[in-house]
């Protein structure tokens, strides 16, 4: 067994959240630069230029890219030959708390959704999805999820007879309804299959995948490309003010499902698609 100190996990989580809130990934920067070449209207060009400039300022001054520094979401792959010396869950939440305190990040979490809605004041608890895998390392992919785009996300349980056309229709309908609200250009995370909650988790995971990567299965890769084309034909455009770049990418993840269903979850992420990964 390999022993990992809880302190090391806390430190890694803290560092990641400060960094990912201030430094956008190269995949997004490259896609925005490409969008700049494709867009023709002065407004669309100007929006993209301002987003690029915004991200440059954030990086240079190490301030948050967006004021909505989101809820902290972590996908953890926990090696079965690892023992954490201390409390794993506390370490993650402590890392989030310190990052949001010391990194000048907004605290956006309320303690209960309906009644008090009192701010927890430290942006915890984090949302943690843990999977036990074989090996002696812990892999963490972390992201901060803003709710302008989270609120535009939807899930639907389709009949198997709806087929791929049903999946396409639903994804396009969700993006069309979201319109300007989720800060386009967006990254569309689609989770297909599994159970109700698994499809939602896959959709979130899809938004945490580099937009330079495609699904390994050729058929799903084609579906990603087709949906991206169709979405960009909608004309919603940067900031919803019209243009050719409504989405930067469609990322699909899938899982086996039941004979009676095709669960489809669409998790929309804004252009501030902030995530990083680490192996401890």
């Amino acid at each position: 067994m390999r022993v990992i100190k809880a302190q090391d996990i806390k430190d890694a989580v803290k560092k990641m959240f400060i960094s990912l809130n201030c430094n956008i990934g190269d995949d997004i920067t490259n896609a925005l630069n490409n969008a700049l070449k494709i867009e023709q209207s002065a407004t669309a060009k100007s929006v993209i230029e301002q987003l690029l400039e915004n991200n440059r300022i954030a990086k240079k001054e190490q301030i948050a890219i967006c004021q909505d520094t989101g809820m902290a979401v972590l996908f953890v792959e926990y090696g079965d030959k690892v023992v954490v010396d201390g409390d794993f869950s506390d370490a993650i939440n402590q890392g989030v708390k310190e990052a949001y305190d010391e990194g000048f990040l907004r605290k956006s979490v309320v303690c209960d959704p309906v009644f008090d809605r009192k701010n927890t004041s430290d942006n915890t608890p984090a949302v943690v999805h843990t999977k036990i895998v074989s090996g002696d390392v812990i892999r963490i992919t972390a992201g901060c999820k803003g709710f302008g785009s989270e609120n535009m996300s939807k899930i639907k349980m389709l009949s198997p007879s709806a087929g791929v056309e049903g999946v396409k229709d639903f994804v396009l309908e969700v993006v069309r309804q979201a319109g300007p609200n989720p800060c386009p250009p967006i990254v569309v995370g689609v989770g297909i299959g599994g159970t109700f909650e698994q499809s939602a988790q896959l959709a979130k995971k899809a938004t945490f995948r580099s937009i330079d990567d495609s699904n390994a299965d050729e058929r799903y890769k084609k579906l990603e490309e087709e949906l991206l084309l169709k979405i960009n034909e909608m004309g919603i455009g940067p900031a919803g003010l019209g243009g050719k770049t409504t989405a930067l990418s469609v990322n699909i993840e899938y899982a086996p499902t039941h004979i009676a269903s095709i669960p489809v979850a669409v998790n929309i992420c804004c252009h501030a698609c902030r995530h990083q990964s680490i192996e401890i």
Partner: protein
Amino acid sequence: MVKKLSLPLTKEDIKTLKAGDSVTLTGELYTARDAAHKRFYDMVQNGEKLPFDVKNQTIYYVGPAPAKKGYAVGPAGPTSSYRMDKFTPMLLNMGLSAMIGKGKRNDDVIEAIKENGAVYFAAIGGAAALISKSIVKDEPVCFEDLGTEAVHKYTVVDFPCIVAIDSYGNDVYKR
């Protein structure tokens, strides 16, 4: 061409604005988002006076990130406006003249904008670090217990936005 406007806006200024125009705003405005709007609404229902007079004022839907040392404000981009729709016609009827946010508004809001000769601006969502450069002063006004949702008065200089819904009810998102 970018139109340079001073806050508070005059009724004449507002009449010249057309959906899609790029403008910059200079002057003072108030911040308020979900929780503050709910309080405004409850206060008016209870016959109480609002903490500041909204007449002719501009409200910016924002919940900023904390400011680093040496900064007037932290990153401060717009939040989605539709969540304020329920409370907006009331404020417009009380004389509020402009709002800054992002995204669509419902028909009730568009109607109230027309009736009151008001205007709705969109700032670029997710350009928070850039936008914060045009906010030069930040004073707390009320509801400090709401943290990032507290009401503040900002002094802005050349704050960039786009006319999203003009006083004639034209909507840039419906084009």
